[in-house]
């Protein structure tokens, strides 16, 4: 078994386990390369099907190409796609681009809060109707008890400590000091009412693994990851006010992989293009406990 085969099989095993064990399961789809790999792994796990909804948190500051791509792929794959948002904060202009809050607070409102309330079903969920191709208010308000998320251990310190099946309490809190044991392919799938599990099938993958897999499987990713001739591209996707492109002339999978292996990004952290990471020292651990992605 080569390296990518091992990673793929372990991830599929975890995805299948969650599908079997959780009645109310969903997968978060940020449109980025990691969660799109996750989506492709789900299609492999279920032989071409994706038997649970994909949830996207729309901050309404995403780079527009991301949303177009999201809807196109949803139609092509017939995905059960749901999005949620923090309508209140957007209406009251409680955002960083509106200059009313700082970057970290903006993330908390538009992502963390929106995510928490979309998962619990308290705020409106919009669901794609494949007959009309449009989004409609979803009647389903039940909380998700299992949430599949594409985080990787190599992204940042506290993520390297994550479990594949990671329990969250009623307030979405992550107790990093007392995580459940996990061994021999047996995971925590029993949980008290009111709590839920985050499931992390990509924990063992690195950024390089992701790109090598994308190349091998020809995973459809947003073209923003490639240089369109301007000499820059995105290495990590997010909201446009806080994510800047990096200088790079990588135009295809091979170029990107070369850049990561021995080229200019061989030892520069992936999230270096994300401004909010720089704002506060321990802030990310706090946001993670809150459920920030």
């Amino acid at each position: 078994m080569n390296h990518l085969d091992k990673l793929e099989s372990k991830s599929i095993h975890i995805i299948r386990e969650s599908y079997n064990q959780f009645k109310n399961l969903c997968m978060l789809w940020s449109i980025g390369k990691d969660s799109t790999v996750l989506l492709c792994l789900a299609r492999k796990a279920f032989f071409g099907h994706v038997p649970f909804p994909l949830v996207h948190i729309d901050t309404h500051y995403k780079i527009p190409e991301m949303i177009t791509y999201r809807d196109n792929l949803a139609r092509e794959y017939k995905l059960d796609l749901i999005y949620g948002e923090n309508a209140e904060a957007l209406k009251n202009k409680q955002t960083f681009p509106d200059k009313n809050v700082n970057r970290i607070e903006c993330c908390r409102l538009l992502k963390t809060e929106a995510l928490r309330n979309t998962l619990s079903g308290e705020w409106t969920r919009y669901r794609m109707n494949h007959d009309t191709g449009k989004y409609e208010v979803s009647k389903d308000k039940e909380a998700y008890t299992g949430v599949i998320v594409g985080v990787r251990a190599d992204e940042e310190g506290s993520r390297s400590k994550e479990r594949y099946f990671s329990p969250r309490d009623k307030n979405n809190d992550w107790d990093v000091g007392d995580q459940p044991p996990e061994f021999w392919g047996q995971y925590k799938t029993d949980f008290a009412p009111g709590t839920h599990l985050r499931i992390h099938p990509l924990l063992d993958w690195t950024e390089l693994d992701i790109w090598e897999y994308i190349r091998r499987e020809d995973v459809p990713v947003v073209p923003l990851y490639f240089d369109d001739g301007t000499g820059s591209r995105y290495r990590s996707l997010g909201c446009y006010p806080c994510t800047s492109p990096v200088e790079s002339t990588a135009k295809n999978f091979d170029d990107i992989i070369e850049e990561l292996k021995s080229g200019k990004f061989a030892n520069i952290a992936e999230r270096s293009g994300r401004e909010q990471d720089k704002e506060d020292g321990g802030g990310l651990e706090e946001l993670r406990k809150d459920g920030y992605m």
Partner: protein
Amino acid sequence: MNNSEQNDLNIVIVGHVDHGKSTVIGRLLADTDSLPLGKLEQIKEMCRRNSKPFEYAFLLDALKDERSQGITIDTARSFFKTEKRRYIIIDAPGHIEFLKNMITGASRAEAALLVIDANEGIQENSRRHGYMLSMLGISQIAVLVNKMDLINYNKKIYNNIVNEYSQFLRKININPMAFIPVSAMRGDNIASKSKNMTWFDGMTVLETLDNFNDAKQPDDLPFRMSVQDVYKFTAANDDRRIIAGTVDSGILRVNDEIIFYPSGKKTTVKSIEEFNAAPKNYISSGYASGFTVTEQIYIKRGELCVKSVETEKIKPFVSTTFKASLFWLGKEPMDLNKIYSLKIGSSKVDVKLKKIIKVINASSLDEIQTNGRNLFVGRDAPGAPQIPVGVADTPFQKGAINRHEVAECILETERPIAFDTADIMPLTSRFVIVDRYEISGGGIITENIGDEYSEIREKVLLRNFKWERGNITPAMRAERFCQKACMLIITGNQDADKKIIAKTLEQDLFNEGRIAYYLGIGNVLYGVDSDIKNIYSNAQRENREEHIRRLSEVANILLETGAILIVTATMLTQDDMDLIKTVLTRESEGDIITYWIGKNIDTDIKADIIISDFEDSDRASLMIKKDLQDRNIIYN
């Protein structure tokens, strides 16, 4: 070489608290240029700002609490590569309080580095971690004697540690690949050869890693795959029924005949299924796979799939009772006779600790409890010696397995499970124990004990294996008759007129156009049982058992016809029920329903429904019918 074709290896670093595990990794990452640019400077700057001395360990200990207390709380993964392969390095915590995190980390590894502080010498968890590695099945181990700078690189002290620890490892059957004297802080013998220890001519840590063998896929062992799920997605007219799971060991090919345990059903592999990949005609160990089969047999999650031809050599056991080595991590001790869940492969069953053979201190290897004395007796075993209290905040209990202890014991599951023993098939001998919502222990099965029904189960497995069916499946019959085949057992004490109720029920169901059959016990007694007729004396327990076995076999045939079978019996016990269930190992669960007629249950039977208002047989029959509707046994 293309990176994705390169091999990888997961390595765990274990050892006693503060012996320098995180520092070893930090140093290894730094000295091999594996850190993101600026990371080292960023940590150094952070230390300066907080006026703390710089620690390589901070590269791993990312949590606020870890940095402020200077210990590792949870395992961290880090990644680095050499010319030879890719590594995932797993940092484990050394503090006893976080043993569960150490096990989580170590279980992901294929090889281990065990770190011992040269100045402090071998400590409790140096040994306990070694023991846990052997239980987890990790046999490639190198021992690093760290902090050599603190003892002036003294060869003699080093040799003493090597000798003492070698003796310990021998006792637990571990043969280490190497001992290496290092100073993680100064970088001696980590990524480059130390100039301070010219007396040492072995390999550096980095060289030792590359010298470990690749983890081998167990393709040459018999085929084993736990059924994780069975998929039938109807979207886009997909009509495949795919049996999915990850292959534990061996290889399976199209046209191979397979058997599922514990049910004993057999069929043949029709196709290997995969999405977005070139067609394949085999699956092998480690792969998350799926296949279709030729016969429409009902298989569900939890069954263990094996290859028929291989059962002649090594067959999995199917049993409820077995001997195991177990480690306990739960906050509460593991109690005799309390109900836990056991997860093995993809199956999950209720389990209890039936007997503790001995409890071992995993560090000193001392036996904690009475030598050979029977501990069947629960927590107040007479004469059980006082055990030294392990962890301060954990309730300690005699006659139980306490937190962080290791025990040899006998477990009994509520239903039979399929398993192998650790000596030949370690992967399929491993289980975990769940206490309420938490995984609280783990273990390996060392020996099948078998139970009183082992012999009968053998017969049933053979029967299922040889069972031949026409073209009509139970599902087809259920659809045609609008009912699920099931056995209704109407029992109760002598006074209640069970027969009248049973016959009324048969009549009511018949009038509705259903297929129902009342089977009088006497009908079996004087016919099928005529050779062993004198049964109901307790002295002839064997005959009673054989009688119930035969009755169940007759029932099994009738259930195959799709009928609702109604049987009456007086004072049925739970033992009788277990026996009936053993014989009726059938397609779906819940196809035996017991109704107790009478106010109070007088035996130990766990009846599904109590019908206390039984004078009026019409009403009783109606209640049972209502229950059958609720259970979706009859519909329309």
